């Protein structure tokens, strides 16, 4: 069973901050950006075991700086765009393979309201996605 895992920084995320500043300059009305790296694991049926494997391995997860979330669905949530590489990287995480599947960008406006699809598309087309090597999934 394929599980999607989101790994985000729990310390300030300078890349997300820079993206927010750049997107505002490009005319996207974003107040705050949340970013996480999305990994797919084919052997993720046993969630506690998967979490244990990832946290113990520390290849993609550092407990001092990261927060790990196992997603209910392997798809973007409202207000998110996933930027997927056309050519994903497989990595070994403690006796199993995972795939870095996407970078998730969650764009928030005033009062932390999620931005609409049109704003997400604009953000992806103008900055977040290079269509030569990536695709945007909404």
């Amino acid at each position, binding site marked *: 069973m394929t599980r999607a895992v989101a790994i985000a920084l729990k310390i300030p995320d300078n890349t997300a901050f*820079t993206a927010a500043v750049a997107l505002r*300059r490009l005319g996207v009305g974003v107040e705050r950006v949340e970013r996480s790296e999305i990994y797919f694991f084919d052997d993720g049926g046993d969630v506690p075991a998967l979490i244990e494997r990832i946290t113990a391995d520390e290849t993609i997860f550092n407990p001092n700086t990261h927060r790990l979330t196992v997603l209910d669905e392997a798809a973007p949530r409202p207000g998110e765009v996933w930027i997927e590489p056309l*050519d994903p*990287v497989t990595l070994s995480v403690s006796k199993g393979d995972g795939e870095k599947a996407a970078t998730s960008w969650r764009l928030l406006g005033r009062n932390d309201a999620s931005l609409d699809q049109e704003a997400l598309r604009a953000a992806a087309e*103008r900055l*977040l996605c290079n*269509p*030569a*090597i990536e695709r945007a999934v909404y």
Partner: protein
Amino acid sequence: MSARIAVPVFPGTNSEDETLRLLRDCGGNAELVHWSQASKLARYDAYVLSGGFAYEDRIRAGAIAAHDRMMDYVIEAAASGKLVFGICNGAQILLEAGLVPGTGPIRRPTAAFTRNGPAPHFICRHVYMKLAIEPVRCAITAALPEGALVPAWAAHAEGRLAATPEHLSEIVGGGHLAFIYASANGIVDAAAVPNGSALGCAGLVNREGNVLAIMPHPERDAWNFNHLDRRESDDVLAPSGGSLLFRSFVQALASA
């Protein structure tokens, strides 16, 4: 007065000193221009974007820098026919800005120098770039001999040309493939390509021939002391092959 060359420095640029030194050694009237002085860029006649990690390569290599105010001036200058030369991270910025290969709108990239393949690792390797176009096709290479071999150092984790099959066809059909990797004796084969780059690409030129983007660093093989293939009897302070491309660039400005 000789043409003025700007070497823009973004936060995170780290190869500006050797770039500046070689430009001056080749007779160029070059100066650094930092990001806080962006408006000064309008006064220059040519631009060399050097290597590094502009804005820490946040989002993607070159993505944020391509939208920096400094690039507003560089894009305008390129449109007016001024020479723009990007090396390594500078090349990545030019691709993200859509200036090369220049087959799409500005700031809507149609290609990328991205993660190396097949292993996604940083490489530091001495390479040779072979001129794959007629020298006069690009103003910056015009003084090089046909099929010139330029030694350089490939030092990147993201130097593989990638694009959709349609855009790769445009790159070939439009004569945008300026440099390809080759061995020291000029043979072009897969073993000479250090990073899995499509078409064996080491450098791209735009349609007009005034914007050139290369991934390896010729400025790091510009004097014999950093040229791997030097002989015992060679003067270590004499120029080596990497300087040829910079001399051609400066010569193009002098003859403009």
